[in-house]
């Protein structure tokens, strides 16, 4: 995750967070497995085929979908195409810089993409106009506008909500517009390790203090669909099992609350 190399996290704050964690508490009063408040506003950008403005605590992102016709990949001639891109806008954080995607934004985009792709959320087979020649391409673009940690989950929530409301412009291809066909919703839960504690939905300070990060995306039936470890710290196998369990439990709550 992006770190502020200026090291703005003061020692007092750092010690406070660590001391609280030892008591099983977070500095903002949350439990270890608790997400921050999530608000989602869909159809935020009416010009897009689907869109969502998501606030996860103070992290804010805008996800927009554009759907255009184009060529399928040669190895999947009977499927539409999904592409995911994340822009870390310079307005979002003092050390974010304008320019082409860097390894941080590429990793976030690919982890978000993998969760959606591997859960087979979008029925890509229904996005074929002419087999092997012309299919719909679903462009997912996510702009991070305010950064306070856990971009992977904020972006995933944004994409899920935007896709849920997306309309495929069938009328441009001589048919009718139709809702993007969706099968199910994967939920991603990102955790970081601080000392020996594993905590859900880290803030930017918690990310700066953490040694390692793990994201577990799960489907409705409780199967793992995608995982990604990040940062140079390590996890024991038991910690990974614990992370999967937390993702399963916390993911259920998120699903009930935001994705019905």
């Amino acid at each position, binding site marked *: 995750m992006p770190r502020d190399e200026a090291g703005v996290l003061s020692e007092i704050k750092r010690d406070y967070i660590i001391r609280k964690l030892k008591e099983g508490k977070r500095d903002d009063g949350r439990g270890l497995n608790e997400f921050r408040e999530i608000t989602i506003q869909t159809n935020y950008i009416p010009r897009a085929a689907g869109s969502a403005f998501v606030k996860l605590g103070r992290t804010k992102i805008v996800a927009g979908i554009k759907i255009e016709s184009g060529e399928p990949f040669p190895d999947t001639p009977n499927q539409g195409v999904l592409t995911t891109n994340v822009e870390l806008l310079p307005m979002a954080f003092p050390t974010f810089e304008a320019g082409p995607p860097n390894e941080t934004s590429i990793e976030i985009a690919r982890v978000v993409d993998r969760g959606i792709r591997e859960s087979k959320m979008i029925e890509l087979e229904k996005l074929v106009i002419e087999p092997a020649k012309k299919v719909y391409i679903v462009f997912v673009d996510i702009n991070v506008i305010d950064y306070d940690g856990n971009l992977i989950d904020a972006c995933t929530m944004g994409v899920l909500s935007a896709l849920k409301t997306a309309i495929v412009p069938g009328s441009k291809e001589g048919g009718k517009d139709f809702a993007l066909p969706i099968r199910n919703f994967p939920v991603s839960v990102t955790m970081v390790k601080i000392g020996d504690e594993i905590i859900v939905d880290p803030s930017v300070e918690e990310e700066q203090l953490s040694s390692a990060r793990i994201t577990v995306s799960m489907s409705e039936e409780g199967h*793992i669909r995608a*995982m990604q470890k990040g*940062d140079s710290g*390590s996890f024991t196998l038991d910690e990974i099992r614990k992370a999967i369990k937390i993702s399963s439990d916390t993911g259920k709550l998120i699903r009930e609350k935001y994705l019905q």
Partner: protein
Amino acid sequence: MGTASDIKLIDENGLRIDGRSPTELRPIKIETDVLDRADGSAYIEWGGNKILVAVYGPREAYPKHTQDIEKAIIKARYNMAAFSVDERKRPGPDRRSVEISKVISEALSNAVMVEQFPRAQIDVFIEVLQADAGTRIAGLTAASVALASAGIPMRDLVVGCTAGKIDGQIVLDLGKEEDNFGQADLPMGILAKSGKVVLIQMDGDLSLEEFDKATEMILDAIKRINEIQRQALAGKFISLALERGGE
């Protein structure tokens, strides 16, 4: 994972397309010091994978703003040769290789005693000459040998290995067809001695029981792969000792 297909990946005797059992690794061969200019190098053949790794450093980190005042940064660059895959790959980094380079760098940083080299960088160049599924974990396995052969202080060796699901069954070390047509892929990087996980990625569909089975298979295989790493390094250091008069 790839598209669904009718290809049968496990036959009626429980054997896989290349004749392996579910817990069998493809043949692995590691050599050290295959390059002259680099500070350390290794070459690995793992099934049909042929991968070269070169290590340069520790040297002053450049550009300067990338320096870490407390430790060395590991910069791994995973790159696939244009001719390494069936259809020519456009040379240069793509999004996949940028991500793989990042997770490999992070995994190696955990094994190297980076705190001994503030402000330095250690470059690890991983060049996939021929790809045959599992390139990231084969590259990681060889990179860790190349670092050791460069004489860089390390806590442990990182061992890479993959398990996956094909025809509904958990198997070790996916081959190319299994990777393309299987239902899950779980690459892991594990520290040989401590058993800590420094790289984990997964895509596909695994139940919790399947995940446990897959990790159990990987943990068992790690020992065998680590032995091959150690032998490659032992070969080097034994001949070095003989050169210096058998000390």
